[in-house]
Each structure stands twice: as C-alpha cells, then as structure tokens.
C-alpha cells in the first residue's frame, strides 16, 4: 500500500499543526509550572447550574432535542441577546451548537466556497483560519496593531479587500489581545462591510467579559443584521467550557442554511448540557457578574505588574488575557516563551501562534489566582532582569 498520509485529503494534510502543541508537551513534562497559558475560566461551573444538569438526568432528559435546540433555551437566548440591542426570533433565527467552535465551522461552510476570500484580523483565536481553509476558501490576514490597542481599523480592512472577499471574521473582545471595539469603531467596519457587500462572522463569546462599558454587537448597527452571523455561547461568561454549548443568531435564510449542516452532522447539542445552559441563563446573572468583577481586578493587577516589569502592556478591555510587548527583551515571542518556561517555570503562549502581527508579544491569561499571578510576575521579572543584564554585558 502506498504512503497512507499521501492519500489523505490535501486540504487536511496541508493544514498547519496547532502552534501551541509544542509548548503544551514541554510544559506537561515539567514540575512546578505556573500556567498563564490557559484559555478558559478558572472557576468551576456554578453549583446551581451543575445541579440543574443532574436534576435533568434524574428526570430522564436523555433524548435528542430539536435540531435547533430546546425551544425554551432558544427563547432564553433571544431574551438574553436583547441586552445587546439584538432582536432575533427564537423559533427561526437562533440555534444551539456544540460550543462556539461548531458555530464557527457552520458559518464558514455556509458562507464560503473555493474561490472566496475570508478576511481574518490578526492576531486572533486560532480556529477561524483552519475552518475557512477546510471550507475551501483563501484566507487574507488583516493586521491589527498595538498602537491601535489591537482594534481593527477600516483602513487596514479596505487595504486587504479583494474582488473575491466574501466574509469578514470579527472576534471582539479579542483572544489573545483583549481588544474591544467601540460602537464608533464597529460603525467604521460596518460601513466597509456594506460598501463591499461582505458577510460578517462575529464571534462574541467574550461579550460579557467587557470591562469599563457594555459590549456592542456589529449586528445591532444599521444594515448589518442581514449580513451578520452572531456567535456566542456559555463557555466564558458562565464558566461552562466543558459543556460545549454555543449558539448562533442570524436572520432566517442564513440560519436555516446553517441548520441544514448541523442537522446532518451533529443532530443536536447534548440535551443535559442544554438544560444546564437554560438554568445558567435564567438564574446565573449574579454569579456571572461576580466572576466578571473578579477577572477585572486580576486584569488590573497583571497589567500593572507587567508594566512595572518593563514589558509594555496596552490595556486589554475585554476577555481575560493580557498581551504584553516583549520586544524590549530582543527575543522572538517563541524564544521568550520557551526560555521563560524552561528557566522560570512559567507557561505563556507566544503571540506568533495567533498570527504574524502577534510576533513580539505573549499572551498571559489572568484567569488564575491572585497568588499565582503575583508569583508568575515575580518569576517573569527575574527572567527579564537577567535578560537585560546579559544584554548590557
């Protein structure tokens, strides 16, 4: 038999492997590592939500649900979205997915095909590009910069647009930069999207984790509803990552197209997890707000410490990541992350993993305890001092 690998789909074999894999393996072999590399909340799902899931199992809710999800859950999602000035009909314009991840895949496969370009701001979360490639599209990076606090600008977007441009991905609040787009910033982007007739895939999974103000969805802006797919979910806001409950809100023609793929590939999101999500949306606001306040305090702590250490850090206004500039050390972000791990036992994610313009930065998650953040900062401080004193010699 010929080489197995050669017989696989070239689309898959050409996909680059995940950039964090090497760090993951390295960190796992070491003792006494403080990880600032985790992209999920450090809270366990609130007890009342876990309890609701157990109760649903006792009640025997172990069947499929409707493809689009439990009708009562879709109603709660529609109600929830009104806080962001979004109005969707729960019976036709909302569906529950297996995490935001499935939603990203569905959106790509529904909107694009070979010959289309997908515009993806960089640096950003690692899944958009592979999903676009798997759908057969070409990916065009749209750079964002520290000077703009990593917000996407209309200028950068305009420069990246080609006649083939079909869809734009937005992920704000952003992983890994913590960037947030104001209403004005989004309006500038919306104008470009309308002018060039672009679809927008707006991943708003970190919407609740917006500090100093309220999140704005681009879908709430004039002319955007019919061209935007809003993706969100329970993972970050309610500390429910492992439950895999996400959702999509979009106008009926877009939603029903995505629902077709979901019907054939997934059937429905897990029933018991949907019951838990229902409890979270109905009764989880207080605990959610407490978690957000706790992230906010740790955010201020880590940013102040990073700046003290001499790693300039713009203010991340959302999500739970700080994205400091490590260029003063003269190392690449991969070198910095690897040496920091080996020499001081602190795991961070090199910014280059998230796209070319992430080079020169590292992602530090502050979803970890105050004590560990402070110890990690002491170690990073020692590391940076050693680097700079070596440089002087």
């Amino acid at each position, binding site marked *: 038999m010929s080489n197995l690998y050669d017989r696989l789909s070239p689309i898959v074999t050409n996909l680059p492997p*995940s950039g*964090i894999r090497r*760090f*993951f393996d390295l*960190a*796992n072999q070491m003792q006494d*590592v403080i*990880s600032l*590399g*985790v*992209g*999920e909340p*450090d809270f*366990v799902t609130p007890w009342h939500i876990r309890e609701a899931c157990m109760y649903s199992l006792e009640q025997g809710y172990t069947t499929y649900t409707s493809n689009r999800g439990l009708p009562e859950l879709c109603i709660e999602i529609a109600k929830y979205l009104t806080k962001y000035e979004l109005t969707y009909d729960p019976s036709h314009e909302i569906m529950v997915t297996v995490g935001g991840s499935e939603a990203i895949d569905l959106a790509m496969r529904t909107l694009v095909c070979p010959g289309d370009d997908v515009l993806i701001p960089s640096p950003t*979360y*690692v*899944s958009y590009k592979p999903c676009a490639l798997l759908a057969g599209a070409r990916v065009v990076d749209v750079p964002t910069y520290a000077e703009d606090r990593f917000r996407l600008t209309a200028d950068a977007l305009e420069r990246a647009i080609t006649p083939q441009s079909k869809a734009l991905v937005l992920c704000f609040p952003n*992983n890994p930069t913590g960037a947030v787009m104001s209403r004005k910033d989004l309006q500038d982007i919306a104008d470009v999207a309308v002018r060039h007739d672009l679809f927008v895939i707006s991943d708003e999974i970190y919407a609740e984790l917006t500090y100093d103000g309220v999140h704005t969805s681009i879908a709430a802006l004039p002319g955007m509803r019919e061209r935007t797919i809003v993706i969100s979910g329970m993972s970050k806001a309610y500390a429910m990552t492992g439950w895999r409950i996400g959702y999509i809100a979009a106008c009926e023609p877009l939603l029903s197209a995505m629902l077709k793929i979901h019907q054939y590939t997934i059937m429905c999101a897990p029933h018991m997890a949907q019951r838990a999500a229902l409890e979270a949306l109905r009764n989880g606001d207080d605990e959610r707000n407490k978690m957000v306040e706790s992230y906010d*305090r*740790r955010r*201020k*702590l880590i940013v*102040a*410490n990073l700046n003290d250490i001499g790693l300039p850090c713009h203010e991340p206004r959302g999500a739970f990541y700080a994205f400091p500039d490590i260029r003063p050390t003269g190392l690449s972000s991969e070198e910095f992350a690897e040496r920091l791990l080996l020499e001081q036992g602190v*795991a961070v*994610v090199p910014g280059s*993993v998230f796209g070319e313009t992430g080079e020169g930065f590292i992602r530090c998650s502050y979803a970890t305890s*105050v004590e560990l953040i*402070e110890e990690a900062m002491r170690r990073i401080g020692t590391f940076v001092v050693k680097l700079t004193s070596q440089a002087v010699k």
Partner: protein
Amino acid sequence: MNDALRLKVVDLLHDNAKLSIDTIAKMLGEAPEVIAETIDRLEKDKVILRYSAVVNWDKLETNQVTAVIDVRVLPQREVGFDSIAKKIYRFEEVKSVSLMSGGYDLQVTVVGRDIREVSRFVSEKLATIENVTATTTHFLLKTYKSDGVIFDDTDGERRLMITP
C-alpha cells in the same frame, strides 16, 4: 470617604486578609496611599476588627469541642436583649453571640477543652443568668463550610496546562 471603595477593599480583605496594600491598589486601580488610608479608616471605625485565619480544627490534634446553644431570655425594659447579651458575651468561653428571630432569642457559640467543660459552663454560668429562661445545647460534630470556605474542597486545577 468613598463608600464604594470601602466596600471593595473590605470584600478583598474578607476573602484574603494577606493581600498586600500594593496588590489591592493594583487590583482596584488606586494609589497605594489611598488604599492604606482606606484600610486605616476601616480599622479606626471598627469596620475591620481583626485579621484572623479560617482554621480547620479537625486537622489539628485537639479535643476541643464547640457547642451552639439556643438561649431563650426575657427581654428587659429599655435595654431589650442587649444587657443579657452583654452578660453572656463577656465570658471568655463564648466565641459568638447573635440575636435571632424565631423560636429562641440568642444563639451562643461556646468552645471548651472537652464536653464536660462546656456542659459545666452551660449549667453553672449560662443557665443561671437572670432572665435566661431556657437553653438548648447542640454539640458541633463536623464543619463542612464556614464563612464561605469549603473545608474539604476537592475542586483542584483540572484545566489543561495550555489551551488556545
């Protein structure tokens, strides 16, 4: 004095009294001097009375026993329950006293070296105070959670070391 800031500082210290002034200042985005002054005022105003540790005594080799005692009393003219409460809380053995609604009036927590010592305190000291009409003593067998802290918390770090 900024009430919102006072609340935030108390909230943080109540959760972890070991936080340094510098850490609190950074977490709340305030100058360290402002935090130092706020804490100073909280202490002077007796909002913060003491900094102490939450201890799981079961993990230490002691025989000490804790009793929670429901006390019924006759309230007195003009001073209500306060003067009797005062007579009770002055005893060294008494760790807490609260006025309760419901079937009894004062809830008293007493800690002693052993059961005999606590029993003697109840029968000889507490029950004999004027206007105390009845006591019901409950010995504490095990504490699972106290002041928001779960004692045998098994929720350790379960996350993967690095995730995107």
